[in-house]
C-alpha cells in the first residue's frame, strides 16, 4: 500500500503530468472567469436573478484558488510569459462600453448630481488605470 502511494506521488510529480494539470487549470480558470462575467453582466441588468441560484462566494473562491494554483505550478515548472500589450487588444473598446452600460444601469435611480459625481470618479479611475498600463508596457 505504501509503495502504491509513493508510486502515485512520483507519477503525479512527473513533468508531463504537471504540464497536463497546468493546462487543465488554465481551462478551469477560463470557465470560471466566463461564469463570473456572465454573472456580473446578468446581475447588472437583473439584480438577484442568478445570485439567488448560484453561490457567488464559492465561485469567487474557486477562481482565486485556481489562479493561485496556476501561479505556483507555473513557478515550479519554470514557465514564463511575455507581457501582452493591452492597448492593442481589439476587445478593449467593447469592454469599456460594457463597463459604462453596467455603471449606468446601477446608478439609474440616483439623483442627477450623484450620477455626475460617480461617472466623473469612474472616468478618472479608468484614465489612471490606462496610464498605469501604458507605463507598464513601456
Amino acid at each position: 500500500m505504501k509503495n502504491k502511494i509513493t508510486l502515485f506521488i512520483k507519477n503525479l510529480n512527473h513533468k508531463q503530468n504537471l504540464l497536463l494539470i497546468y493546462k487543465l487549470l488554465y481551462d478551469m480558470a477560463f470557465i470560471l472567469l466566463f461564469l463570473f462575467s456572465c454573472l456580473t453582466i446578468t446581475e447588472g441588468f437583473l439584480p438577484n436573478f442568478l445570485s439567488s441560484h448560484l453561490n457567488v462566494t464559492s465561485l469567487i473562491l474557486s477562481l482565486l484558488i485556481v489562479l493561485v494554483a496556476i501561479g505556483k505550478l507555473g513557478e515550479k515548472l519554470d514557465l514564463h510569459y511575455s507581457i501582452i500589450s493591452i492597448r492593442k487588444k481589439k476587445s478593449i473598446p467593447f469592454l469599456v462600453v460594457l463597463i459604462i452600460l453596467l455603471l449606468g444601469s446601477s446608478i439609474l435611480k440616483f439623483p442627477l448630481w450623484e450620477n455626475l459625481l460617480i461617472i466623473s470618479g469612474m472616468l478618472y479611475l479608468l484614465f489612471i488605470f490606462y496610464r498605469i498600463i501604458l507605463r507598464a508596457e513601456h
Partner: protein
Amino acid sequence: MLNFTKKIILEPKWQKRYTILRSLLYSGTVAFLFVLAYIIVFPSISLNYSFSARASSNKNTISDPRNSDNSALKKGVLPDKKLLFDTTIMGNFSDATINIVLGKNSNQISNGTLSVKKSYRAFLYPTGDPIGFKDGSLLFSDGNFYIISNGEKRQFASQTIMQDLGFSIGMFTPIEKNELIYNKTGNTIEDASAYPNGTLFLIDGEYYQLKNNQLYLFVSEKAFLSRYDANLALKKDSSFLEKFPLADDQIGLADGTLASIGTSVFVLSKNKSYSISSPQVFEMMGFNWSDVYQANSEEVGIYKKQKFSIQGFTHPDGTIFEDAQTKNYYIIENEQKHQIIGTELLKSYLKIHPVLIDSASLNNTVNCTFKKDLLTLRDSYSCTIPLKKIMTEKGNDYQFIGEFNSGIRISQISAIFNTAPNISNLRNSLSNIKASLISNYNTTR
C-alpha cells in the same frame, strides 16, 4: 480554438489524456449551464420545519405549525389530530409535495389527508369583533355629541360643556346610531375643565394627543393627517403646553402606511418598519404605488427597522382588506381581522387603497392523501397536491390543513413547490423575466 496554452506541447500519450479530460471539463460546464437554466426557468422552492430546532430558528422556513385552535404544537404532538401550517412564497407553482417525518413513539399514519388554500396570510387570521371609531374621533348621533376616549364613546352631558371645552359643532361628524355600537359606552363628560384621553390639539402649528395626562406630539403634520381629519384638533396657544407634561414618545404615521426614503419602501406599523425588498414583493402584497408617501428621516426614524424575510412577511396591523365578493372591509389588528361596518367608520380608517382580496378563495381548496415513502429508512409520508385550481387566487400564502388518526407525533415537515417543465410554464418564466427587467428600469416608481 480556446487553447490558452498553445506553447506548452505535451507528449502524444499525455496530449490524448489532456484532450479527453478537457472535453469532460467543458461538457460538464455545458451540462451545469443547462441545469442552471432549468432551475431558473422551472424553479422549485423547498421549505422546512424541524420540531427539534427552536421555533424561531432561521432554518425553520415553514411558519407556525399549530393545531386547530391556533396553539403551537409541543414536540410535534397533535392533540386534536389536526395540523395547520403556512408557507409564504413568491411565484406560481404547478404542485406542492408535502413530506412528514414521524417522531419517536408515533403511530403510523393510516388515514392522513391534507388540504391547501391560497390567500394573504393576514386575511386567513380569525375574524374578531367589528372595530369601532379611533380615540379622538368627534361624533354626533341622535342629538348627542360624543368623543371616543380609551376605545369608549363618551357623551358630552350638554352642548354647553362641549363648547366650554373649546369644541364647536362643526368639528363633529354626523353618524348613524348603529355605527356607534362597536365602541363601548364610557362615562358622560360633565366636567368642562378636564379634557378626556384622546383629545387632539393643534398648538403652534404642531399636533398633539392627550393620553394619561401627557401630551404626545405627532412627528409631523402628515402623521396626524394619516390618522385624522384636520378639523378634529382643538386650536390652543403655546401656554397650553404648560398644563401637561410632554411625553417622550411621539406618534408616527398611521399603522399600515407605505413610506419611502430614497429608493427603499417600508410598511409602518406599531413602531416598527418593515422593508419591502423589491417591486415584485410590493405588488405581490397587493399594495398600490400611488399610496407610497415620500417620508423624511425624522418620520421614519422613530420606527424600529425589522429584518425582511419573505417567509415571515405578512400584512402588519393597520392593513385594510377589501373583499371583492362581499364588498366588506376588514382591518388587521393583533392577528385578527376586524370588519369595518359603516360609511363614516370606513372613511375614518380608509386613508389609502385597501388590499383587494376575494373571500371565495377561503373555500377554494385542493386535497391529497398521505402515502408512505418506500425508498427511505425513516418513517416518512408524502402527499403531492396539484396547485392549478388555486393558482389564480390572490395572495402569496398557502395554508395547509392536515387531518390524521390519533397518536401522531411529527419530527419534521417539508414542503417542496415545483414548476412542471412544460411550454406554458416556460412562457410564464420568460414573461416574469421580462417583467423583472421592465420593473427594474421603471424610474417612475
